[in-house]
């Protein structure tokens, strides 16, 4: 199996807990009347493809596991518990239960160190998994029957600069790709990020009132569309070039590194990405986007 691993696909997989809330899965306690269908149906298309591929693992890079010292990898074989979102506790109280690919975690740790980055293995069995990781994984695979590997978002883009942060994420992506190759995994990647991130700070009485769900401003909508057009046309080099400006102008959450990590791990593919859906959540821009690499891997 050594050096035979491959990345099957990468997904931009936004994590607003509203998507889980709108779906009403048994694992989530609060009940809704629906909402945000454009994004939830987009995720349903991804679920079908992932099921068909039968990957060994889904890796997710989450901005809500923000770490100060280095890039961290979940390294506990099994993690379960109740996740109550600290920001949206009224809509997300979710029972999670996940198996972690610890062999891949070890390989990622080693390869990340080889890139000159600080890496750590999270080995505390009482650790509470962040809701960004959980929401993205639930929306991609609600059965939780595929092992996962959670990766933290080192806060270097915020602590130092966008440039330094993105450089680190490129190195992390390269390291991840090598770890997947050497462990022989057939892997799916998920960047748990919204696009534009300016949002409202007051909620409607009915949380899922779609009459109240609009983009925060047209400027950030225009930015989201510009970025999505570059993804759809496979202009990844141009996408990377405008990302710093996008992060600044639209307060884009991709600044936390997930998208850059994923694109780097995939070798900055020029394959046109498929935008499965776009919608707003409390005013932020969210898109479910797929880069299907299976034709390259075949």
């Amino acid at each position: 199996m050594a050096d035979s691993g491959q990345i099957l696909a990468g997904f931009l997989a936004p994590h607003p807990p509203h998507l889980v809330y709108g779906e009403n899965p048994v694992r989530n306690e609060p009940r809704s009347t629906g909402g945000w269908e454009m994004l939830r149906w987009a995720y349903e298309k991804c679920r079908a493809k992932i099921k068909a591929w039968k990957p060994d693992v889904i890796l997710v890079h989450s901005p809500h596991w923000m770490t100060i010292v280095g890039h961290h990898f979940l390294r506990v074989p099994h993690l379960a518990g109740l996740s109550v979102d600290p920001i949206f506790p009224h809509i997300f109280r979710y029972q999670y239960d996940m198996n972690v690919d610890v062999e891949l975690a070890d390989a990622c740790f080693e390869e990340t160190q080889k890139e000159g980055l600080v890496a750590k293995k999270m080995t505390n069995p009482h650790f509470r998994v962040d809701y960004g990781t959980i929401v993205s994984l639930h929306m991609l695979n609600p059965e939780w029957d595929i092992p996962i590997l959670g990766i933290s978002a080192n806060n270097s883009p915020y602590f130092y600069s966008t440039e330094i942060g993105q450089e680190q994420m490129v190195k992390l992506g390269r390291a991840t790709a090598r770890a997947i190759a050497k462990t022989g995994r057939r892997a799916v990647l998920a960047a748990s990020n919204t696009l534009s991130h300016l949002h409202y700070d007051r909620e409607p009485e009915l949380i899922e009132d779609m009459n109240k769900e609009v983009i925060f401003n047209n400027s950030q909508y225009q930015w989201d569309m510009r970025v999505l057009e570059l993804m759809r046309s496979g202009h990844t080099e141009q996408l990377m070039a405008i990302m710093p400006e996008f992060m600044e102008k639209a307060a884009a959450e991709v600044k936390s590194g997930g998208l850059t990590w994923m694109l780097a791990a995939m070798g900055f593919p020029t394959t046109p990405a498929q935008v499965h859906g776009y919608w707003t959540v409390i005013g932020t821009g969210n898109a479910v986007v797929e880069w299907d690499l299976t034709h390259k891997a075949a």
Partner: protein
Amino acid sequence: MPQGSIIGAYIAPGLPHLASDIAAVSWDALRRGFHQAGEHIHALQPDVLVLYSTQWISVLGHSFQTHPNPQGLHVDENWYEMGDFPFDLRVDADLGTRAAAIAASLGLATKTVNYHGFPIDTGTLVALRFVNPANQFPVAVVSCNIYAGQEDSLTLGKAVRQAIAESSKRAVVISCTGLSARFFTDEIAPYNDRLSQTEDDAWNRRILGLIEQGRNAEVLAMSGDYARTAAVDMGFKAFAWLMGTLDTPSSPGAVLAYGPVWGTGAAVVEYQL
């Protein structure tokens, strides 16, 4: 019914290193300061401890913990090797609910939080481990709204002050915050801990010096510059909250301890009222 009052006030750090048993000169000094604060609070026998923690972050306005008995086990997301934090809090839900209502009447967006399993933040739990180790005193906890500026933070403190006054309780208020917040981003040996920038150290000492002279209004006026220059934890809005609860007094604060934690500045400061 007699009016409630604030009988003590503190600035306290909230990083988990202090709750560990790892020896380091600065951490030991901060622990001693924290224990001293705990002893003084115990002597005061307050009816409630009211905490504001920069590590309980909210974005939809200001949140108030109103679950009467949050229980669980917390692990810090960064320093999970520093130990687990089992908790079993006795929350003064009435005080939190009333403070939220007053804050809302003053124009702030507020939420009360009453959910089983809600995560309690590291800062709150570190502070309580030192100042309320036997879980003797009920607590009320307020979040740090990342979008709030100094004015809103002062208003939030004012709401808490009014709620305490209406409650007829004797309260100690604790602002759980770091000072300069430039962490080392590599692994360090704890015994080598120091302020990551000498300029930050100078700023921290300048601010603490003013607090020791009771020049709290000046500190408020300088908070913007201090926050920008020394990358202060959440813009030092925790101090504004504290001043809101105390109506910006000219009382001096005693610095019980000051030193670095992983490159950041941390202090235990006590206002005797």
